[in-house]
């Protein structure tokens, strides 16, 4: 009986091992030591279990590894990104797509208040928030004032502008209107 039980447990263990490995991203296990990979995968798995997208976390870990960051730096970066993703989901609601969450998390990490995410979601209605958020990230990363950018983005959203309208925004459109200078 003991022998049968031992065999059964062994078979169950062998079957469970691949299942456990399925929860780990191959890119993480390939680039980090087992100990670090386990730590990172724990963070990523916990995010996944909350319904947050795992891909941005994996990519951030890979970025840290490519740049020679320490394990502590990478774990801290993942933790901050996971928090931002959580905040983004609370602000945007449970129906937000992974892409929207990724973009929203990036905006939050650049200092956008969560209330603006909620407002943008309300302004856009059933239209996606990807285009306005992408425009916001692009413009602020170019040094345009975050408040001015938000004013322009929210105004466009209020007017039910198309995604293409957001894509056409340039720093000049936000900073001042070049048409003023004519002739």
């Amino acid at each position: 009986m003991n022998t049968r039980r031992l065999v059964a447990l062994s078979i169950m263990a062998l079957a469970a091992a691949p299942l456990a490995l399925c929860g780990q991203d191959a890119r993480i296990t390939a680039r980090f030591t087992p100990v670090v990979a386990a730590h990172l995968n724990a963070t990523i798995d916990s995010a996944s279990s909350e319904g947050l997208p795992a891909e941005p976390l994996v990519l951030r870990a890979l970025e840290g590894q490519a740049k020679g960051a320490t394990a502590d730096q990478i774990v801290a970066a993942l933790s901050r990104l996971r928090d931002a993703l959580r905040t983004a989901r609370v602000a945007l609601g449970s129906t937000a797509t992974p892409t929207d969450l990724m973009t929203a998390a990036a905006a939050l990490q650049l200092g956008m208040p969560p209330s603006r995410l909620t407002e943008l979601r309300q302004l856009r209605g059933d239209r996606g928030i990807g285009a306005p958020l992408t425009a916001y990230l692009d413009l602020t990363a170019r040094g345009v004032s975050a408040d001015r950018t938000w004013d322009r983005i929210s105004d466009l959203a209020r007017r039910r502008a198309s995604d293409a309208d957001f894509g056409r925004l340039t720093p000049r459109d936000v900073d001042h209107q070049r048409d003023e200078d004519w002739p």
Partner: protein
Amino acid sequence: MKVRLLTAAALIAIATVMHAQVRLETGGGEAHFDRLPSSALTSLSGMLDTRLGLAHLELSGIEQDHLAIGNAGAFHAALHATAAPGAWRIEAGPVIDGGRDIGSRFASTYAGDVGIERDIGPVTVGSNLRAGVAQIGAQHSAWQQPALHAGWQVGPFRLDAAWNAIVLRDSTLKANDVLIAGETRPDTLYNHDVRNIQEMSIRGSWGWRPLALNAAVGHRYGLRAIPETWWSAGGALHLTPMISLVAQTGRQESNVLLDLRGGVYTTLGLRLEMPHAHPVHDDADNGQRALILHDAPGLVRLSFLLPVGVQRAVLAGDLTNWEPIALEPGTDGRWSIHLADRPGTWRLNIRTDGADWQPPPGLPSRADEFGRRVGLLVLE
């Protein structure tokens, strides 16, 4: 769409008959050519406004040929060092202006300028102080010009208000008969006068593609100054992404420092904006350094202008799973790579000749969490 095209064609035809005007714009410069059908006036002007690192360079000039009357022209040059501590923006540097009115001698002014500006919510406030000397024929003037300005942006509306004072101490050479009479002491060679001039202006604009409108009014008054009011109103209608129909009318103020006359003007013309390779950045200092081209299905080609002498360059980013991939050198100093065209905002860096990771030139960047900066690539 058809109606819009027909309207555009009609307006272009009308504009061409009334007034030939060409204006070329790039990220950092403009060139204008105007010619009225009557040939009464031909003007040629150009403008360059660009940033070179921490320096801000402005160059502009205009030459007007008033047939059978004479020529007039003016130029402006300024080179400012810039800094942005906290929420403030500071500029300081030399400014040179020159000009010649019809039948007059060349006048010039050399000044130093320092300005400070910041945003407070939707409001921009700033101040600057300019001081210099002006030479107009036999008269020279020392002048100071303190100024305040404020702008308020609410959605597509913008309102700007400005005030400045110009305090001039004019020194004019006395007539020869005075000198002949024997008053040759240096302090009696000139007559001195002080003018204290105040100027105020308000400008409003509204822009919502395809239409943009603007209007402004200003007034000048003060001690030993001829009161003057100027105004302008106009708009631009974007007919296509490249072509706009523009109309502007107003009264140009005279130039106190260079003694150039103002006047009434009306212009109706076409503006041609050079297209940006999508989404080439229109920042003057970055405009040509990064190109993002969708020239193959499902792929995006990134092309960067790297410094001369680079032997090897690699790119790593979200779209490569942060695996370094070599950039291919071109014959024009550009280095290119094809990546999967996936909509989103992606992080990436490049490394040249084994140096540290850097944001690709020409792309916006932000601090990463690892003590460096990371470039942001936006794909739509």
